[in-house]
């Protein structure tokens, strides 16, 4: 099973990378851009039999390790 965790900067936290990409796109004549955010994606390949409570375990590692709740939000999904 493949889990895709997405970690993005929180709305009110400065996102220098997003700003840089936005400027770069604008200077390359990419019109209509309203905002850019840069985050991380972590793909986990795990053995099929996740066992009971595996969803909470994913949540826990997202909170504890994969994201920093002070500055980041996360979401995850099972890949198709």
């Amino acid at each position, binding site marked *: 099973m493949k889990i895709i965790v997405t970690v993005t900067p929180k709305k009110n*936290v400065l996102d*220098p990378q997003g700003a840089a990409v936005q400027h770069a796109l604008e200077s390359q004549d990419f019109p209509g851009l309203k905002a850019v955010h840069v985050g991380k994606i972590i793909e986990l390949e795990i053995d099929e039999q996740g066992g009971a409570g595996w969803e909470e375990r994913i949540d826990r590692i997202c909170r504890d390790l994969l994201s*920093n709740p*002070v*500055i980041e939000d996360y979401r995850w999904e099972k890949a198709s």
Partner: protein
Amino acid sequence: MKVGVLQFPGSNCDQDSLHAFATVLGVPARLVWHKEESLEGLDLVVVPGGFSYGDYLRCGAIARFSPVMKALKAYAGAGGMVMGICNGFQILCEAGLLPGALIRNDCLEFRCETVNLTLAARREAWQAPLGANPLRIPVAHGEGNYRIDHAGLAELEANDQILFRYADRPAAIERRGNPNGSLSDIAGICNREGTVIGMMPHPERAVESFHPSRDGLPILQTLLKLAGHR
């Protein structure tokens, strides 16, 4: 008095910190391997700079789970003195021993230069030895941009927890004082009690005759003094 310098895989300022305490200041000091589980007998624990675990996920994120970190939490919880420098500051924030977080420098580049710092806290232990002068201390980091929410910042200010701020450079040089875009020019903070400290600049690189300054000495000496008063 005994100083311990933590050593994670990828730490690279561990030897410099050890040298500053053991050789320059002549205080007994030793390295503490990240797999050690006790910090007993230490009066001051330094979490040094470097790239723990390559800083591959987020700076300090993985180091936080090292066995020694459990011991560090207990140690800090009991009022022990802890100093995190650069990557060490990042680790302390990740571990929740200090509030806030450090993100990419706003210029998106690593910055190594000597900055001017002012002592921002009114804390007596620091005021007396450091005074008002700007201190010249080297920085070297890619992620030193301190961030915290409004309430958190207000709390830091209310509790006098902002220890150091970046100050302006001399007018002759066209260079901004704040090297990373840090919120409110914050360069270093402490917990309420003043026992856990984190700063991005490297005081251990400002202790010898040929360093950019020797302004790191009073910082390290103040730490030792605070550790002694425990």
